[in-house]
């Protein structure tokens, strides 16, 4: 029985508590997206689930086992994470980087076995990066680079993939491209995806499950329709808005009010 959940997690850095005593479970084989205002602890949460940050209290349970007592390599075979804005030495090639995803499966000899090579090949193919495999990473565009990182994460062959703002710094074209790729991985291979995303409209379009964080706790969770509502946006982001249906996919879509433009502000509507 595969699952990942946090039990009474308190997270933070030094003396600052960012998440306070939260118990949470991510649904398997679904896309879960964490939302919330800047600094609400979305990244912190994802990082702690990926054991990049040790909880102050509580524990992260992977398939029922406390992650902090597990061998690091074993975790790497179950769960992969793509941190925010990863950067690496310029000289590395696409293939070399994706092969690093097979690291947990290799022994001291560091030789790639047939299975490893297959996985690398498949990851490159899934991300449409096969033709770039001998290119140097620094010669690629932002969207291509991000696809290479995702390929590396895929090569790890895990069922759970955590992504921390995978679309930041990307043009809108690349954002859609990356999210489509992630969606495909989820639908075709049943990967459990947990990610942090800033764009609420895209979040509601791609998410099966959404979790809104506020005041160090989970404010609300559920389907996009349950979470992305007028009152929640007001409470979590402190902003007035209308929610309409996305004309293409019928998912909730946010239309914010501007304070300065009078004609459509809530005040003028009231009159």
């Amino acid at each position, binding site marked *: 029985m595969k699952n990942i959940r946090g039990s009474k997690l308190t997270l933070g850095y030094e003396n600052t508590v960012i998440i306070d005593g939260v118990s949470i479970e991510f649904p398997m084989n679904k896309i879960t997206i964490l939302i919330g205002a800047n600094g609400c602890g979305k990244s912190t949460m994802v990082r702690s689930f990926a054991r990049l940050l040790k909880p102050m209290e509580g524990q992260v349970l992977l398939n029922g086992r406390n992650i902090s007592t597990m061998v690091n390599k074993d975790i790497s075979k179950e769960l992969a*994470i793509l*941190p925010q804005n990863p950067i*690496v030495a310029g000289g590395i090639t696409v293939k070399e980087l994706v092969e690093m995803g097979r690291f947990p499966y290799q022994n001291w000899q560091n030789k790639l076995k047939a299975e490893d090579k297959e996985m690398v090949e498949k990851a490159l193919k899934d991300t449409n990066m096969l033709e770039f495999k001998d290119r140097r990473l620094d010669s690629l565009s932002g969207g291509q680079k991000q696809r290479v990182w995702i390929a590396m994460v895929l090569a790890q062959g895990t069922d759970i993939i955590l992504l921390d703002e995978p679309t930041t710094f990307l043009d809108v074209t690349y954002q859609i491209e990356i999210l489509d790729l992630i969606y495909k991985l989820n639908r075709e291979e049943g990967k459990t995806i947990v990610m942090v995303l800033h764009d609420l409209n895209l979040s509601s379009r791609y998410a099966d499950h959404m979790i809104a964080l506020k005041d160090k706790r989970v404010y609300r969770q559920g389907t996009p329709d349950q979470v992305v509502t007028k009152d929640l946006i007001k409470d979590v982001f402190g902003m007035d808005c209308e929610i309409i249906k996305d004309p293409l996919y019928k998912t909730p879509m946010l239309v914010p009010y501007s304070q300065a433009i009078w004609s459509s502000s809530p005040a003028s509507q009231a009159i």
Partner: protein
Amino acid sequence: MLMNKRIVVLGLVILAVLSLIHIKQGSVDLSVRTIVGAIFKYDQSVEHDLIRDLRLPRLVIGIIAGGSLAISGVLFQSLMRNPLASASTLGVSAGSYFSVVLFSVFFSGFRGIPFFPALVGALIAAIVVLILGRGRGADPVRMTLAGVALSLVFSSMTSALQLLFEHESKGLFLWGAGSLVQNSWRGVKFALPLVLVCLAFSLIISRKIDIMQLGDDTASSLGLNVVLYRYIGIGIGILATSSVVAVVGPIAFVGIVAPHIVKRLGVKKTREILVSSFVLGAVVLVGADALARAFTSGSYELPVGAFTAIIGGPWLIYLAFKTGKNMGNSSYGLLVQTGKKRLAYKALVIGLCLVILLVFVLSLGNGGSSFLRSATRDFVIARIRLPRIVTALLAGIVLAISGFLLQTVLNNTLADPSTLGVTPGAALGALVAIYFLKGSTSLTISISAFIGALAAAAVIFIISKRSKYNPIMLILVGMAVTAICDAAVNIIVINTTVGKSASLVWLAGSTYGRNWTNVMTLLVAILTLGPIAWLLCRNLDAVMLGQDIATAIGTNVQRIRLLSSLVGILLAAIGVATVGTVGFIGLLAPHMARFLTGIKHRKNLVVTGLLGGLLLMTADLIGRVVIYPSEIPSGLVVSIIGAPYFLWLLYSTSKLKR
């Protein structure tokens, strides 16, 4: 405002008290009355002459020099927006010093004050460091690193000169360590007008500097010619530094310590910072000189430059410690440059081995003289040349691998035993054995050097632990430890007469007279630590991707870092203990290897080792043959070959972006 005035007044009071103590110090006891008398009612007595011609000039030059270094520190720090900038950290002092030594070697009859050589050296160093450190947005750390590296280049060239022209440069050693000793008013008369001009000009532009603290863009949009004032300010700083260096030699840390204390006291306006730093700089330097003299008696003289380093080094460590708390570990990977085209690995290894073999055979055959009888020839080759050549080869390998490991672990392509302070630690250890252990053999010297290296490394790692081995912290602490060790080495060399040349040779790094014991030590080190390093390389591939990703794909980053640094430090200590302070190999070989083979650590490791061995063996050969029957220590040959390459490397990496 009121508080700032109080700081200045308090500083002046302390300075007055220190001055009185300072004048009283020396081999002849003087009463306060005599001192006051000498200043106001000169009666041509011996005591009055002593005060007027020796002690007062020394005090006054101390005040001028301290103040001047402090204002140059303020200028560098605010104009380069780099809290760590100062004449000594940017390599400006070292450049100036090198230039003066060069000048005195070729114009040994010159008896004046070598101001122009000092100025030229300082200017060149400043220009180089500005170009190298520019990168993107003049990153302070990048610039400081370039400065440290530049200092290394200059100081190795300086020691080459000192060794090659021992006679011409012998008077410079005390000066080179920074000394306030004056025997007339000449130095003061020379420096005072210059320093006053610098102070005046810096006060004039201080308002502009305030505006520039808002950032270049804001300052420009406020109508300030940012570039012009930046260069004027830096120019004043260079002038202030070189006029002081020309008279009293390079004195480290006053330029960092004084402005920092002033800023910590809450002074904000540049004009006030300048004035209070001037006073405080004088306090620090006169105080250091008074302290240095309090520890000595009679003609025995401790160089004040060494003493400011011993005070300033810990200050820098403290500073690093305080700021280190707020510096998280950089989650980024190592930034390296690799060649556009990679060579085939196997061909490269075979090729390198062939070249090594070639140099090896050449080394055996060439020693500057040919032998008539084959028995002598065989003896020389088997007992003298062979062990030394093998030592050079192995030590080169050891040092190169050590640098390679430390660079990867510390995420810093400029890390190496010599920039981290491990080598200076070993040097101090060796000198302690040479001078203080009766009948020290090469074995005890090596052991002592080994202990010195480990101690230095331990200090550096324990202190930087707090910031989780943040690369910046490590370099800072390394700098401080280096300064302290260098100061101690200077003090030992200056205050003892026996074996000065021998220790200079050791300090320069020598493969001269190495025997089979050295070979065995190095061989054991390579055979035990080499395979461990090779195994670690697999994980280092992962660590290079940055802490987060390395953890995510299953590496225990902390453990790998700790193990690799342990291996790196052990190798460094062993290497340095056998061949002295050979710098640059640990910097050059890994870079070349990455350039040739790309980013896989196992390939890098092998090629790094081969390149390192080849470098040192070639240096050994060149050093023996070029000026036969004399010898250039191989460490210096490496520096002379390595320095230009290294500067180019710094330049080319300064253009890399994150």
